[in-house]
């Protein structure tokens, strides 16, 4: 009897479900990637705030197990959950987060600039907007970089890559 034949006698009749997992993960890779990115943002923010997952669960009015699922990055999160996370942790997840900030910018920092947020098609990004000043200068905004150019005024508002958010 060969080595392999002896080995096969020890093998259980059961088959692992690993390949079912593999196929599911590949099929849902884009969703999982988003879920994992949100999980990382949540864990980072919990660290900054020195909150436990239990603290977050209490504020979200959900069971701690639900938060545990979120931070594992395997959940297909609902808009309701994402909205709660964004509001409670004050972290950017949805495109509306930036729109709200831009309106805030108009009101508080630079009242002479009229902010007109227009959705524009923008390849490779989730959203893009153009803001026009009264002097017709264009202020372009996207997920990764925002620069204001109105006359001599220039200010970097947000750099998504460095995760630094300047509150207006």
């Amino acid at each position, binding site marked *: 009897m060969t080595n392999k034949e002896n080995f096969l006698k020890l093998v259980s009749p059961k088959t692992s479900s*690993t390949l079912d997992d593999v*196929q599911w993960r590949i099929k849902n890779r884009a969703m999982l990637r988003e879920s994992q990115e949100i999980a990382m943002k949540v864990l980072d923010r919990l660290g900054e705030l020195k909150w436990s997952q239990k603290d977050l669960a209490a504020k979200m009015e959900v069971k701690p197990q639900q938060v545990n699922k979120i931070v594992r990055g*395997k959940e297909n999160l609902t808009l309701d959950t994402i909205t709660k996370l964004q509001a409670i942790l004050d972290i950017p997840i949805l495109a509306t987060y930036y729109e709200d900030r831009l309106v805030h910018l108009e009101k508080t920092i630079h009242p002479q600039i009229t902010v007109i947020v227009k959705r524009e098609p923008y390849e490779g990004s989730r959203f893009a907007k153009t803001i026009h000043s009264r002097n017709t200068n264009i202020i372009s905004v996207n997920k990764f970089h925002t620069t204001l150019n109105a006359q001599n005024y220039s200010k970097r508002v947000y750099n998504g890559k460095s995760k630094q958010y300047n509150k207006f």
Partner: protein
Amino acid sequence: MEIVRIFAARNELFAVHYSNEKHDELKRLLLLWNDVSYLNQFLIQNKSDIPKGKTITQLVRQIIDNANEIDDTLYNLILDESMNIDSFFKPLNNNEYKILELWKQKGRNNYLRIYALRIDTNCYLITGGAIKFTRIMDDRPHTKKELNKIEKCRNYLLDNNVTDEESFLNFLN
């Protein structure tokens, strides 16, 4: 200890399911390597081993990407039955070049390791795996544990007469 098949119809890849674990080793490892919370915690605990210039977030992303590549390799093996699994594994000890009896092997993708015993040509038993930042497995408890697991599995197979005369002769030569 139970040995389960990874492919239902192919006698090529197997994994150990330890009695104290919920899943077999391959399933368990891939679940962990896709778990942001686990990876974050692991990297915090092993912060001193993290390569210079890398942040925890970057490494979490990288490990998940590497785990995705392992998923892709397994998926390609499902699609293409002529694909050879031998190419995924290399000797655990970099200095070994002769075929040995129940040879200890590693499948490697960046920091990820899958440890296995070579039963025969294109036939492997996965005994465990780890995220490895240090050069020597004995250097860290989690990799040292994997060395013990692979040795324990090898002894289990030897105790159950899984030996190969041809390999053994190669070993003697």
